[in-house]
């Protein structure tokens, strides 16, 4: 989990979550086990924005439907980003 917390890719993901969440959290306040929808208020449209933003800033294709369907928490999202 150490590498997940500090890699540039997951930092980018946390920054995007912080920007799109309606909870007013800073990136460093976002916990891995937080559920994107229930804990961070990321609804379906915000989630689309989130994955588009992560792909755009990483300049690569990361997600597909099967990967996306498994993403519930911040850790799930970061793991998908790291696997890409």
């Amino acid at each position, binding site marked *: 989990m150490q590498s997940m917390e500090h890699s540039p890719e997951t930092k980018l993901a946390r920054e995007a979550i912080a920007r799109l969440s309606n909870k007013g959290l800073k990136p460093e306040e976002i916990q891995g086990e937080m559920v994107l*929808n229930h804990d961070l208020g990321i609804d*379906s449209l915000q989630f689309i924005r989130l994955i588009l933003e992560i792909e755009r800033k990483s300049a690569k294709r990361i997600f597909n439907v099967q990967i996306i*369907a498994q993403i519930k928490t911040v850790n799930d999202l970061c793991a998908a980003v790291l696997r890409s």
Partner: protein
Amino acid sequence: MPPAFFSGWSKTIKSSLPLPPGSDEEKRIDDFLYELNEDPDCISMLREMDDAGIDRAILLVIDFGLAYTGMESTIEEVHLAHKKLLEQSDRFLAFSNVDPRRGQEGLNLFEKAVREWGFCGMKLYPACGYSPDDRKLFPYYEICHELRLPVLTHIGPTTATLPFRHTQPAQVDDAAFHFPEVNFILGHAAVTHYQDAALLAQYRPNIFLDLSGFQTAVNHNEFRNIMRWHIARGLTKKLLFGTDWPIHRFWGTQRDWVEKITSLPAESLVTEEGVRNILGENLLNILPVPRKEHAKHGT
């Protein structure tokens, strides 16, 4: 899926997002939507059904042939593709749909589907331009009455390239009134126009409410309140589980959607018996098909 249907669906999603028109991100949304729909042999669907403990699923034909031009397949070919899936797996059931404006030829196709090809219900897609209470549908309802087939009709908005005017719950009332022994399932209406639909389901014994699309309500944290609304009106035996595969694949798996229902007793919203009814028993009671011995969830 007809290209014009896809285009309207895609435009609706994009219109809710602050993306520059024609940007790479807009194209990426189309990639995802295409991918969502890529499961022609239902392999992914069966895999997810296994994981979720869903025993059987109903496949729905939609006749877009009069609503859009340039369809790749005739409506008969669409039916035959579904018939092939029925022959490949006993885990599928299928409902036929023929646009009632096709006249006698269309009625003949529907009869063949339900009498010879194993289709066990009727689907309506009124957004294609007809109302469920259109008299042209009454000969179809006569057949449904004779064979004890349920009628599932779409309720609520759909792609932006089709009109929504015939998709209100009230437009089913006249048909439900004239055919009291035909069971009408209002597709998505447990969560879309749900207050109007619940009123109909409360007072018409032959009206049922399909839950598919509830994923959106879950996403907006509205699902529990909607369930409370129905339960307070004694509708537990009128609610039918559905997932609207493949549309909501993006937001979770079939297993996730089953778990949203099975978790309701822990929140004192529904009893365990209510869950069994919603996940399968209610539907089995109105389908003309034999029950399976060991079904876990759904039908």
